[in-house]
């Protein structure tokens, strides 16, 4: 679509930009609160953009078109329902910030709310999910660079992982959130430009009639599998956002009054993106484009209607959607391991310099591990992504009831996550990927509610605020680097 030379120039320019911005913003990260949580004072603009950009992953820009091509209009709508993850997390973000003003991770919440056994299971699920997501991003990066610019898969994947690791190391969450703002603007502007260009080239009437004649299935209003995918995707999205430290760290990082507004705005900004991306895919037939690989339909259509400029825009959009998620995953998964495993389990008296070193080591370690797994180019994007679905779906109820319901208890949470994950995985293999999160969340709900009813707890919310309970390690973390 574009020459390898142009691809290298684009890749180089964007890489240098992100690293320089990472260094610039990284100067603010003088304490662990700064490095891990951007000083806990992030405003509405950056808060909204970081939530929105992080949720626009390469899966949104590659899988949403694939959904549209395979499941039609319902596929676009199904992917859009992932916005409810952000919208419904908005009130939770406010509550998290008020209940845990000194909290660091989602693991902190589970440990304080449900105890050690549930915490360990939660960490296994959360780290597995985070790593799975990271791998799917790394793979997508390599595939895209190869498809758009002819850059070899291994080289493209390595550069993307290396650049994101670089600026996350320099600037922590300051760099992640700052770059997310610019990346969100590039993503949204790019999608609008390609969408409008497509509409100028082929009118909606032609697209509709072409689909009605050639692929009527895609316009069918009653498609049981596709309708199931709507609920599955909604619950998968909810599970992803509710449990993942990617979103919790942002809730801790935003100002108290900002979290709820930022997540709400981000949800509404994200909602139309899969529809626009899906529409671009649905026009491929009317434009006479031969789609050999469904997840590459976006770049193909853009290049067809806008020529080289279209391919350049798509390259930038994909790079930004990848970077905005990879950096967040590296930062938040590293936070989870540093805070929940190293500081809580291995070295509770660790000082700031030690924590920063460990955090940096974990970021590099995660990137290297992801690189090794990505290298052989295993599986498809959907397979990798949806495998984690039932597990994250089973965390929705333990997290939500744990934040609002005093009666929710540890037994319910642990059995809910276990039973939900196992039932969801069984559904994944026996029924199909589009039922896995649905089954995982439903089984977990029944278990959590039943345990809360039969063995009610009476949780004291003040226990979630570790700072007020004189935790020595917590006090140590308020010091700056020396």
């Amino acid at each position, binding site marked *: 679509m574009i020459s390898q030379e142009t691809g290298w120039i684009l890749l180089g320019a964007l890489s240098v930009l992100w690293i320089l911005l990472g260094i610039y913003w990284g100067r*603010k990260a003088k304490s662990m609160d700064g490095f891990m949580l*951007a*000083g806990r*004072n*992030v*405003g*509405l*603009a*950056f808060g*909204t*953009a970081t939530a*929105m950009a992080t949720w626009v992953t390469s899966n949104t820009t590659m899988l949403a078109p694939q959904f549209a091509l395979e499941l039609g*209009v319902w596929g*676009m709508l199904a992917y859009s329902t992932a916005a409810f993850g952000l919208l419904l997390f908005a009130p939770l973000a406010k509550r998290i910030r008020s209940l845990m003003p000194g909290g660091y991770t989602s693991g902190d919440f589970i440990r304080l709310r449900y105890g050690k056994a549930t915490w360990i299971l939660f960490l296994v699920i959360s780290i597995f999910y985070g790593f799975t997501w990271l791998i799917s991003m790394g793979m997508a990066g390599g595939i895209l660079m190869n498809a758009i610019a002819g850059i070899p898969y291994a080289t493209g994947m390595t550069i993307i992982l290396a650049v994101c690791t670089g600026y996350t190391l320099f600037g922590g969450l*300051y760099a992640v959130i700052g770059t997310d*703002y610019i990346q*969100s*603007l590039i993503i*949204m*502007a790019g*999608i*609008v430009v390609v*969408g*409008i260009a497509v*509409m100028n080239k082929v009118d*909606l*009437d032609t697209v*509709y009639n072409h689909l*009605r004649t050639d692929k*009527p299935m895609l*316009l*069918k*209003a*009653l498609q049981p599998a596709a309708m199931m995918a709507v609920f599955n995707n909604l619950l998968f999205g909810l599970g992803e956002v509710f449990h993942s430290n990617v979103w919790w760290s942002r809730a801790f990082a935003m*100002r108290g009054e900002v979290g709820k507004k930022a997540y709400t*705005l981000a949800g*509404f*900004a994200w*909602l*139309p*993106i899969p*529809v*626009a991306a899906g*529409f671009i895919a649905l026009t491929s037939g009317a434009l006479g484009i031969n789609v050999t690989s469904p997840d590459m339909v976006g770049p193909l259509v853009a290049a067809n209607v806008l020529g080289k400029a279209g391919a350049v825009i798509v390259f930038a959009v994909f790079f930004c959607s990848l970077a905005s998620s990879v950096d967040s995953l590296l930062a938040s998964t590293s936070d989870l391991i540093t805070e929940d495993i190293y500081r809580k389990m291995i070295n509770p008296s660790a000082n700031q310099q030690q924590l920063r070193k460990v955090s940096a080591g974990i970021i590099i370690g995660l990137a290297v591990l992801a690189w090794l797994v990505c290298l052989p180019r295993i599986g498809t994007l959907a397979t990798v992504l949806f495998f984690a679905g039932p597990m994250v779906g089973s965390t929705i109820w333990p997290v939500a009831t744990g934040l609002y319901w005093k009666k929710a208890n540890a037994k319910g949470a642990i059995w809910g996550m276990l039973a939900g994950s196992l039932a969801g995985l069984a559904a994944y293999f026996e029924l199909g990927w589009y039922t896995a999160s649905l089954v995982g969340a439903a089984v977990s709900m029944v278990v959590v509610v039943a345990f809360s009813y039969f063995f009610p707890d009476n949780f004291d919310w003040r226990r979630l605020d570790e700072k007020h309970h004189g935790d020595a390690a917590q006090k140590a973390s308020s010091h700056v680097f020396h």
Partner: protein
Amino acid sequence: MKSITAMPHKKQAAMYFTESFVSVMIIGALILISIAVIVLLALLITDIKNKKLW
């Protein structure tokens, strides 16, 4: 069971998303994304003015 083609025309049309529905959805999506870009820029200016960026 009746096949789709054997059904009366009106019932058959109701089984598919209409052209107007699809058009509104797509144009609406592009308008919403454009508004989101403007809102993000406006929020940035407001946060810079009020010194509430970070």
